[in-house]
Every structure is written in structure tokens, then in C-alpha cells.
């Protein structure tokens, strides 16, 4: 470290033994450090797990990782989405599917209109989907299903948001109808049969959303062989930007390609906000640990003043005195933090192995499982912050110890 092996080993030995000298005080300090590490990892693993679940839910349960539309669709999607339609071209779908990082693609025809139970009708937002492709992209979309999903067999079988079905008192197997304006502008209506309801915890979607077979939508809207949206699943969520860039490159300027984060900026915002809150909480723990270390070390220096004088008398240099106290601070954090990290990781692994803990959005019956995760991005900063923070906390006491004048230190009681 600073000098030769025997010198350093001697200081390290002293540092460790001195920790166990005042067991109560050291335990308290190491406890504070350990508690901080434990809470950081536990809280962190759940918050990151929650964020990850939210992103997965968005990507795998709702909108896909990427969406491809005709250029200009995004600006008019709330007024005239049908004007920006695309051909249902198997070659185009295959071209996207071949791009590196793309896992699956599915066509959609998105429209709005009225759903009626024969006596009442209400607004809805519908998606015509190709069930086989759709559920390959959205692998968890069927998780909150009652009854059946959209299938190829039932030409007019609709999957409806639970609240919407309840509002219209539509039961599974019950009949209703959809009414919408065709692309040409005429009103058109088709019968439907309720094959399933879904409640994924999103109030708006539960109240307004509806899925029908793609062919049904094309017929209702007078748009045979057309679609408005292609949803894309990716193999690696973290690669989504790169995949988006490749898709953009491949399709050229007549298409627009958006990532889930662009389509649902609020999800990304929530995830980022959670991380910020986590960071702030952990900072508080770190500050508490640092104060504990400073306090403990200052008390140690005071109690050991004469010993420091003795060490100086037999020839220990100032640098070595401060190094000894620094080592002591770091050793305390390594012991307290290391133990806490072990406990935390075992606890997290155990919880994760049991499938996480269930949680549901307020007012929803949809139950998600938050599986805690411990990415390197959580563990390494925690470790580094703990060691650096406590080392920093040791600096002032260490300097105080090294600045003592030997004669005065030796006269201390």
C-alpha cells in the first residue's frame, strides 16, 4: 500500500482488531452501514423489479416494443387514423421479421366507434388483430383474460375490456354490435359475439378497449387487405433502440418507427422517477452511515490518543497513523456492508425464486408479481458508494489522529 508488506499487514491487523475492541459501538456503526446496504438492495431490487415489470407489461402485454406506422400517422391518430393505412403485405411483415433483434411482428387495424348491446351504445377503441401473430408479439396479453381471446375460428368474436362489458351488461357468449365510420365516410355496423373480457389493471383500457379479428375490422371499415399498425416484439428489451434504428433504416422514410418509450413516455417517466426516489432514499442511508462512522472514529481517536502517541514514539509516521484509521473505517464498512449484502442477496434470490410478491394497481383486480432483480447497476454502485462513503467518513478522524503531537498524545489519560 504505502510501504512494505510487514508494515501494511501490521496496520491492517491493528485496524481489524480495533474494530472488535469496542464491540457495542462498532456493531452499532456496522449495523447502520449494513442497514443502509440491506435497505438499498431490498428496496432497489423491488423498485427495479417493479420498473422492469412495468416495462415488460407495456412491451409484452399492451403495445409491443416497437410500432410501425405510415409516416404522419402519429399526428392524426386521434382524428383520422384510417387515412394513414398500409397494405397488409406479407412481404413487408417478413422483411421486418428478418431484421436482427426482431422476435415477432403482428398487423393491426386500429379504429374507434360505438359498441352497442342492442339498447345502449358507448364509445370504444378497437383493434383488429391477427390473433396468431398478435399473441406472439404480446406474450402476456392473455394473462388477465376471462373467457377466450380473439381467435381465428370465431369470425366476429370480440374480446372486450371488463368495465366496458359490465357497463353494457354484456355476458360471455352475449351478442352486440359495432358501429364505425368506414374509410370512405359511411357509417357501418356489424354484429359481434363476446368471447372474453380482460382487465389488465389499466382503467382506461378496461373501460374502452376492444379486440376483434383483423378481417372483421377490415370488413367493418371497408378496408380489405389494409392495416394501420404493425407491432414488433424484440428479443432483447435493452436493445430496443438499436432494433428501432435498424427497422427505420430498412423501411425508409415512408414509415415511422416508434419505440415503446416514445409511445408511452409516462411509463419511462415513472420508471425514472422510481429510480430517483430510490437514489434519494439510499443517499439518506449513506449519510446516516457516514455520520455513524465519523462519530465512531472520532471517539476511537479520542480514546486511543495515548496509544497513538505510543505508536508515534516507537516510530510510526503520521501517514501510517491516518492509514490505520482509514483502514478501520473501510474494514467496518466492508464487514457490515458485506454481511448485509449477503443477507440481502439471499433474501432477494429466495423471494425471486418464489415468483416475487404479488401487487395490484389500485382499483384493479389484475395481480402482477413484482420479481426483485439485482442487476450489476444496483450492486456495484451500492458497493462503491458504501466503501467510498465510509472511507471518506474516515478521512477527517484519520487526519485528526495523525496530526496529534506525540508529546501531548502521550500525556493524555
Amino acid at each position, binding site marked *: 500500500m504505502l510501504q512494505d508488506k510487514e508494515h501494511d499487514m*501490521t496496520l491492517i491487523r*491493528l485496524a481489524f482488531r480495533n474494530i472488535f*475492541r469496542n464491540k457495542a459501538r462498532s456493531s452499532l456503526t456496522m449495523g447502520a452501514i449494513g442497514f443502509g446496504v440491506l435497505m438499498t438492495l431490498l428496496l432497489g431490487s423491488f423498485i427495479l423489479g417493479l420498473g422492469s415489470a412495468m416495462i415488460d407489461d407495456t412491451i409484452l402485454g399492451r403495445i409491443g416494443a416497437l410500432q410501425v406506422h405510415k409516416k404522419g400517422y402519429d399526428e392524426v391518430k386521434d382524428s383520422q387514423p384510417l387515412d394513414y393505412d398500409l397494405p397488409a403485405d406479407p412481404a413487408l411483415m417478413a422483411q421486418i421479421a428478418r431484421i436482427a433483434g426482431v422476435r415477432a411482428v403482428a398487423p393491426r387495424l386500429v379504429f374507434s366507434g360505438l359498441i352497442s348491446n342492442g339498447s345502449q351504445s358507448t364509445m370504444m377503441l378497437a383493434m383488429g388483430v391477427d390473433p396468431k401473430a398478435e399473441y406472439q408479439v404480446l406474450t402476456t396479453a392473455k394473462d388477465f383474460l376471462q373467457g377466450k381471446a380473439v381467435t381465428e375460428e370465431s369470425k366476429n368474436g370480440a374480446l372486450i375490456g371488463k368495465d366496458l362489458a359490465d357497463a353494457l351488461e354484456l355476458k360471455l357468449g352475449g351478442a352486440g354490435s359495432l358501429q364505425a365510420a368506414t374509410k370512405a365516410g359511411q357509417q357501418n355496423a356489424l354484429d359481434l359475439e363476446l368471447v372474453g373480457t380482460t382487465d389488465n389493471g389499466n382503467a382506461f383500457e378496461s373501460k374502452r378497449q376492444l379486440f376483434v379479428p383483423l378481417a372483421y375490422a377490415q370488413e367493418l371499415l371497408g378496408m380489405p387487405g389494409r392495416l394501420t399498425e404493425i407491432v414488433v416484439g424484440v428479443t432483447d428489451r435493452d436493445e430496443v433502440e438499436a432494433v428501432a434504428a435498424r427497422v427505420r433504416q430498412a423501411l425508409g422514410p415512408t414509415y415511422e418507427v416508434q419505440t415503446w418509450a416514445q409511445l408511452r413516455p409516462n411509463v419511462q417517466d415513472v420508471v425514472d422517477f422510481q429510480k430517483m426516489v430510490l437514489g434519494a432514499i439510499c443517499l439518506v442511508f449513506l449519510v446516516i452511515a457516514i455520520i455513524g462512522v465519523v462519530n465512531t472514529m472520532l471517539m476511537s481517536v479520542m480514546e486511543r490518543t495515548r*496509544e497513538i502517541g505510543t505508536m*508515534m514514539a*516507537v*516510530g510510526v509516521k503520521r501517514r501510517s497513523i491516518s492509514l490505520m484509521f482509514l483502514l478501520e473505517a473501510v474494514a467496518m464498512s466492508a464487514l457490515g456492508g458485506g454481511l448485509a449484502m449477503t443477507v440481502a442477496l439471499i433474501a432477494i434470490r429466495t423471494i425471486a425464486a418464489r415468483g416475487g410478491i404479488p401487487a395490484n394497481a389500485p382499483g384493479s383486480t389484475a395481480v402482477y408479481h413484482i420479481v426483485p432483480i439485482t442487476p450489476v447497476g444496483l450492486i456495484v454502485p451500492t458497493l462503491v458508494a458504501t466503501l467510498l462513503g465510509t472511507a471518506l467518513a474516515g478521512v477527517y478522524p484519520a487526519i485528526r489522529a495523525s496530526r496529534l*503531537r506525540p508529546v501531548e498524545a502521550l500525556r493524555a489519560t
Partner: protein
Amino acid sequence: MSLVEIKGVTKTYQLGKTEVSALRGVDLTLERGEFTVVMGPSGSGKTTLLNIIGCLDNATSGSYKLDGEEVGTRDFNDLAEIRNRKIGFIFQSFNLIPVLNVIENIEFPCLIRGENKKELRERVQQVARDVGLDPFLKHKPDELSGGQRQRVAIARALVTQPQLVLADEPTANLDSVTSDQIIDLMLHLNREKGVTFLFSTHDPRVMQHARRVVRIQDGVMVDGSGSAQVEVDRLNAAQHG
């Protein structure tokens, strides 16, 4: 060349606004192999003098040559080296490192200057034997009696093979029997191993053992040339009449 040459050394402590003159012009010369006792009442400046000789503190004025070298102007690290290489310390309150056992306390000054632990072992055990600590090598200081602790301190002072061992009232915290044993031990080490001792005390009894006694009072040497026997006679005379 004498081992220690002190000329006109003064030491003034600043106590708030008042100045305390602990040493007011001390001359002292120590030769190699001597066993010298500094005698003086409490507050007379013994510790101050030993601290300066031990390079733990600087004199306010005057000159100090250790082993022919002026040490007054060195910085902390240089002085730490000098202390480590040339001087051994024995304190009134033993000053062992409580978390280290006997062996570890003894070898400590050698380890921090980088001596190899294995190569040291032989010497450390020899020194421990010399001071009669053989059976206690693994004991921690708090498991030892006062006399045993002071033996550890003596061993720690000797293990670096210093040119000078400073013992500041090393028997003040010991009972008279143990005191005698410790003094005998130091005298023995002086005689057999040629270790140079400077020993401070305010206990007249101790002087019976000394070869050379210097007397200090109020920061000045009262009598730097007296032999032990002269001193004992003088004290006896003073006590009896």
C-alpha cells in the same frame, strides 16, 4: 563523540497567556554504555528533558546532538525514523498496544520499519527470554501484571537494538518489590548487553542502584557529576538530619 550532547537547552510551554519554563538551560552529556539516572521532584522537568532527548519534542533553544548529529531541525518523519532506529522508550504507564499480544507488542517497532516477521522471530523470542516473559508470549496486556507489562515495554524498547533507552519513571506505577526487579533487569541489560539507559525517577530509593545520577530541579541541573554513592550518602544525610 558522545552519544548525547545537550548544551543550553531550554523549553518553554505556552499555557494560555503564561509561559512555563520547564527547562532553563540544561547541559548534559551521555556516553555509550552508561546507566544514568535523572533525579528530581515532580514537575522539575524530567519528562520534558527525556522527550527532547527522545526526539519526541523540540527544544525551544539550545543544541542537541544525538550520535554526533544535530536533531533539532528535523521534520516529523525524520524524527520518527530516528526514534525508531536509535531510541527505545519505556513509559511510566507501560503504554502497550492493548489489541496486540506480548510477541506482537515486542515486534511492533520492527514490523513498522519493514523487518521481515519470520527473520525477526528468533530475535523477538530472545528479547522476550531476556526480560523473563517466556511463558506469556500469547498473552494480551490486560492479562499481565504491572511488572510483566513493563517487561514487555522493556523488550519492545530493546528489540530494535537502539543506541539509547529512555525510561521515564518506569517504576512509578509498580510496587517496591517489582520496582526492584525491573531496575535489576535494566541494570543487568546495561551490564551484560551494553544497553545505554537514561532513567528518570523521583524515588530516592532507586538511586542506590544507579551508577551515575544527575539531579534536576526547576528545569536546571543541580548536580550533573555525582556518582550514585555520593548521592545516597547525601540523601541519607539529608533524611537523618
